[in-house]
């Protein structure tokens, strides 16, 4: 897919996921059902504030500033899209309202787009009924409307989880586009650099070019990788050789300054990227909304089983890969009915904060023996500690409802 001369226009669509979960307090099994418990104490305020402020300083603030400068420098021709989770915005509101202002300023340039997702970055799309999923999307929609007075057209589910059922629901809710992983599982020989249509509904699917995305997201500071050191001109040249309408570069925003620290050169890379890309006359940047407006679908995709952009497996086994995760997922899901009957708004809020997918991610035993990325992102001493703590809290919540 990356060979040959071409004169046709290719667009680069950059999108960042911006998310922070509400991490949990230590909660012992002996604590379950104690009268003095209050569900607001499930969350580790101090740790959460610490991590948020650290990441804000290393990533959010400097990267927002850099992107704003780049947009201005290139007369609005450099474009990016963001997906801001509800929990992330709550962090900003509590600890750093100026961060919201800086996103507003970015949005005002007209070169920044926002993407819809579930407010809680949850796995509600995998529940038997999709009413909770819909509620959480609407809540996110309301939040974006309130802050930016904007209505997103493109949806991206938690960690790009996608299947036919989710596509149908999103299409029914009026969205025009959806984002997922450009996995061979659904493409076979086809290229991710085009828009596709779900087999069962009318919607444009943007597929992540995982090779190019992971070159930055995962491999940028890997010294053993043949592409190291990755420079903006090298990367722009790789993109210029790509065939297709659209190169989708989707990654965590924390790539900049957090996953790869400042001293790896990641900010220099970003700083020079637009300029290097514009040296190739046939490439430009688009937001996700522009991408679906400008390009048409070239084929259909059929995804009966959920895929995602996570881990090597690119499925939902990151969150539901072992018995512990399935047990927590079911426990939480099954609390839904009684929580909603209970009509206690705070309890409902807590239940939803517990749905954030990160809590299940911490219980993953995948690749434990090779000590891979999971450990880096967890504040627990391994998945078993993560499970015990999470399950104890779910048991306590259950008792609080009844």
């Amino acid at each position: 897919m990356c060979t040959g001369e071409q004169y046709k226009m290719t667009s680069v669509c950059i999108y960042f996921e911006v998310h922070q979960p509400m991490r949990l307090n230590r909660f012992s099994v002996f604590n379950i059902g104690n009268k003095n418990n209050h569900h607001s104490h499930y969350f580790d305020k101090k740790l959460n504030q610490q991590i948020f402020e650290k990441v804000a300083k290393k990533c959010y603030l400097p990267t927002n500033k850099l992107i704003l400068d780049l947009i201005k420098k290139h007369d609005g021709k450099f474009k990016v899209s963001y997906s801001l989770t509800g929990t992330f915005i709550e962090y900003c509101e509590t600890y750093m309202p100026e961060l919201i202002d800086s996103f507003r300023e970015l949005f005002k340039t007209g070169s920044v787009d926002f993407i819809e997702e579930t407010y809680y970055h949850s796995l509600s799309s995998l529940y038997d009924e999709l009413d909770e999923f819909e509620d959480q999307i609407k809540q996110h929609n309301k939040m974006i409307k309130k802050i930016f007075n904007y209505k997103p057209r493109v949806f991206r589910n938690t960690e790009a989880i996608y299947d036919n059922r989710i596509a149908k629901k999103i299409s029914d809710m009026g969205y025009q586009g959806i984002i997922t992983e450009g996995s061979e599982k659904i493409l076979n020989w086809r290229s991710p650099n085009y828009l596709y249509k779900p087999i069962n509904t009318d919607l444009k699917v943007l597929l992540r070019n995982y090779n190019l995305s992971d070159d930055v997201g995962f491999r940028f500071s890997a010294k053993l990788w043949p592409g190291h050191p990755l420079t903006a001109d090298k990367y722009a040249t790789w993109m210029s050789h790509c065939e297709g309408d659209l190169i989708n570069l989707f990654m965590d925003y924390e790539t900049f300054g957090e996953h790869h620290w400042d001293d790896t050169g990641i900010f220099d890379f970003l700083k020079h990227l637009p300029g290097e890309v514009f040296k190739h006359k046939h490439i430009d940047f688009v937001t996700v909304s522009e991408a679906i407006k400008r390009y048409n679908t070239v084929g259909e995709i059929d995804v009966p089983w959920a895929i995602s952009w996570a881990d090597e497996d690119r499925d939902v086994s990151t969150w539901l890969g072992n018995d512990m995760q399935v047990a927590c997922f079911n426990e939480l899901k099954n609390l839904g009915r009684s929580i909603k009957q209970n009509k206690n708004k705070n309890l409902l809020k807590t239940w939803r904060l517990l749905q954030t997918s990160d809590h299940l991610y911490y219980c993953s035993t995948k690749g434990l023996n090779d000590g891979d990325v999971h450990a880096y992102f967890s504040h627990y001493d391994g998945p078993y500690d993560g499970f015990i703590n999470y399950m104890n809290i779910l048991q306590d919540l259950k008792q609080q409802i009844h």
Partner: protein
Amino acid sequence: MKVAMIGWEYPPFKAGGLATHCYGLTRSLADKNVKVDFYMPKTKHSAKSDKPNLFIKEVGETEVFPYDRPNVKELEGKFYDAVYKYNEMVVSSVKGKYDVIHCHDWLTMKAGVELKEKTGAPLVITVHSTEYDRSGWLSPNQWFIDLEKEGMQKADKIIAVSHFTKRVIIDKYGIDPNKIEVVHNAVYPICEGQKKDIVLFLGRLTIQKGPEFFLKAAKKVIEYKPNSQFVVAGMGDMLPKLIDQAVELGISNKVIFTGLISDEEVKHIYGISSVYVMPSVSEPFGITALEAISAGTPTIVSKTAGVAETFKNCLKVDFWDTDEMANKIVSLLKYKPLHKTISNEGKNEINLFTWHRVADRTIDVYRRTI
């Protein structure tokens, strides 16, 4: 390659991980075409080799039981004499040409040093524990420390059973880090049995192994889950004190003290237990954790134990944090998905901990001394 290895226990006689290690190591070395003569004191149960390259050479009897701690002044003189006597016996019985002399822990170090001087062959010593570990870091005995230090200084290479132990050898004995290699232990897997709600402690009942913390955690678990059953398996100088402690805690009807148990009984109890706890105050490695895990028994170990630095699918606690220990025990008994996942993942990971790997790493160390 021909190795004179000097130990002081070998199955069926076995008091600790050292015997298990020597057994696994010598057999795998023999499989890899290393000729091993294993020198050890004669005991009531004579040890036999089942490999053509491996010979067990028993060199006369000794009164010394290496895990006993000589406390009484009077005994001390006798104890030290017996140690010197054993080492002299070993030195005089080692004949022929060897490429490497390999000793295990303090009891054999004098012999190792003398043999190195006598034959000119390089000396490798494996440190399974130090005096600091065995004393629980409370009142280490200088006589042992001096003996260990001399051996470590004169050795060409030192094998430490963990990075934790390597650190102790550097910090407490002042040894050059470049001389020390870490080789983690291994296990011959044990069969899984029909699981019962048994929470197991298995090991010497000494201050080093932290059995009193196990009983304190047991008290908390029993208050929450009255049907749970606790087993303290093994012997040691703390046994009377522990029985008193169980009575004082009011849990003596829930705790079984087995006393000394046979190898077969050890395997059986590993197999049927639901949780194994190793709350050691100081644990250079902790092979028993691997044994329990291989039998499908989820295991809680001290954070500082050597095994905790290399084995992922186990739970870790501070040995003094009996609240957290009890939290983890109850969780393992209460949440079946946790029990199943950690048990299965643990058995998978155990496959990486083979004596063949230990032998390969040990041969690497030998090669670098020759």
